[in-house]
């Protein structure tokens, strides 16, 4: 009896692993192919049948990346822009989401949504002029600010949804316990909303890639 249950359980697990493998395999294959490409000489790239592991590794490809352009600087700039845009979006977006959810200020949420829906290109010229006047051209700030146009609405909207589902009683209990509104937010609402914050962090991070065109 028990052995049958164990057998069924292992079968379940094997099945689950198989399904997971099938679903993830395209991603893994794609990644492996990228590594393979980076290690091949140009002649092998278009070879038929395709070569996964080349006979001689083209390590020089990597050296070339660093030789021909300032790869490390660009990489660091990317990290800086993405990091600060996402972080700023969280700092602005999480409290705004909380405020909108608690004050039931749906109208301001719609305004934020409209900013998100407007084609990014329509911002480009006004923002360019603005950055020119403020002398920010040539720094990383314009990039960061442009990303905020996209990331802030994402964070705000996810957080509104999240804060609306957290029970009001918890915050009422905290205010009866003697917490100021700011303490209620920091010590009760914020820790409970952690999963929501993680989700909006990830989505804000991903969304960066789609807006780099305007940089």
């Amino acid at each position, binding site marked *: 009896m028990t052995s049958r249950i164990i057998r069924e359980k292992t079968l379940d697990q094997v099945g689950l692993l198989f399904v997971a493998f099938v679903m993830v395999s395209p991603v893994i294959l794609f990644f492996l192919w990228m590594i393979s490409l980076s290690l091949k000489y140009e002649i092998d790239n278009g070879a038929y049948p395709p070569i996964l592991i080349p006979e001689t590794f083209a390590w020089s490809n990597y050296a070339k990346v660093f030789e021909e352009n300032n790869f490390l600087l660009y990489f660091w700039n990317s990290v800086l822009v993405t990091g600060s845009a996402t972080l700023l979006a969280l700092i602005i977006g999480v409290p705004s989401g909380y405020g909108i959810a608690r004050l039931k200020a749906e109208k301001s949420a719609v305004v934020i949504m409209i900013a998100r829906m407007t084609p990014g290109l329509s911002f480009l010229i006004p923002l360019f002029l603005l950055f020119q006047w403020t002398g920010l051209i040539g720094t990383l700030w314009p990039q960061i600010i442009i990303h905020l146009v996209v990331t802030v609405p994402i964070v705000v909207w996810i957080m509104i949804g999240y804060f609306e589902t957290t*029970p009001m*009683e*918890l915050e*009422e*209990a*905290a*205010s*009866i*316990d*003697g*917490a*100021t509104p700011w*303490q209620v937010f920091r*010590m*009760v609402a914020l*820790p*409970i909303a*952690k999963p929501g914050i993680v989700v909006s962090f990830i989505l804000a991070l991903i969304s960066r890639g789609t807006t780099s065109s305007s940089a």
Partner: protein
Amino acid sequence: MATVNIQNIQKNYGAVKVIHGVDIDIADGEFVVLVGPSGCGKSTLLRMIAGLEEVSGGEIRIGPREVSHMPARDRDIAMVFQNYALYPHMTVADNMGFALKLKKVDQSEIRAKVGRAAAILGLEKLLDRYPKQLSGGQRQRVAMGRAIVRDPQVFLFDEPLSNLDAKLRVQMRGEIKTMHQRIGTTTIYVTHDQVEAMTMADKIVVLHDGYIEQIGAPLELYDRPANIFVAGFIGSPAMNLIDGRMEEGAFRTSKGLILPLPQSLPADVGGRELIYGIRPEHIRAEPQGIEGRAILVEGTGSEIFARLDAKGEDIACLFRERFDIRFGDTVHMVIDPARVHLFDKQTGRRL
């Protein structure tokens, strides 16, 4: 500890009035239960005392302080919510010590106070757990512990036992009462369950549609309900309320059944439309009584609840002695005239 005075408190949401000028005086250390059917305004009233709901008019005093428009955090009260409202990201100990932490009380003192409250409630072994690892009854205790640790002037309870199963509810009812007797803090307790109200309260406030129907000690409400609403609400099973008039020294129901009246009656009852009230437990089964046919029989072992059809009147009876009745049997019932309540049908008031 403190008295609580509520004077002419009103609440409206826009044009809709939900509480129409309520006055309640609560003595220091008293256990007051606000009871009424859902939508009667009892929770709203409690939330106004807590400072979670704006007061539209009137005045609330806790001790000498006027608190009507004071934020909840400054009122020095503690509240236990229906769904416990424990902070899910904090351990039991942190939940109980949260208010003290906000007051910047010393860590060691917080630990001592939490320990003392945990000992009262038997929570010592659970202090490091998180709320989601606790059962319903344990969560309820933690919520009470959080209130005790504060040592507030007033305890507020908002239907704290509704989420527990029947057996646990009876047990926790006893524990809350014991805790009150031990600590003696003024307590305001909201419930829709009149059994909870009767068993726990020093004083019951019966609310209905935003008005107070009656304030009094539990037995006072049971023995002398001020109106038809209280008569029907307090007591389980509910009082029989039968339409009729007085005729030739007896009560004649609208369907023609003759029922006995108490010896002394107010002079002006004749001719008026009346409501005749008799509690099921004040009806005995005796051979010389009024004849009725059993249309429902429920035995619990300690008592028998029966509905009898007497000339078309449906009368609920609760018999303490054990005898064999079945559906359709004829039962003779005797009503104790001294325990009859008479109400004016028009005003609903007691006569």
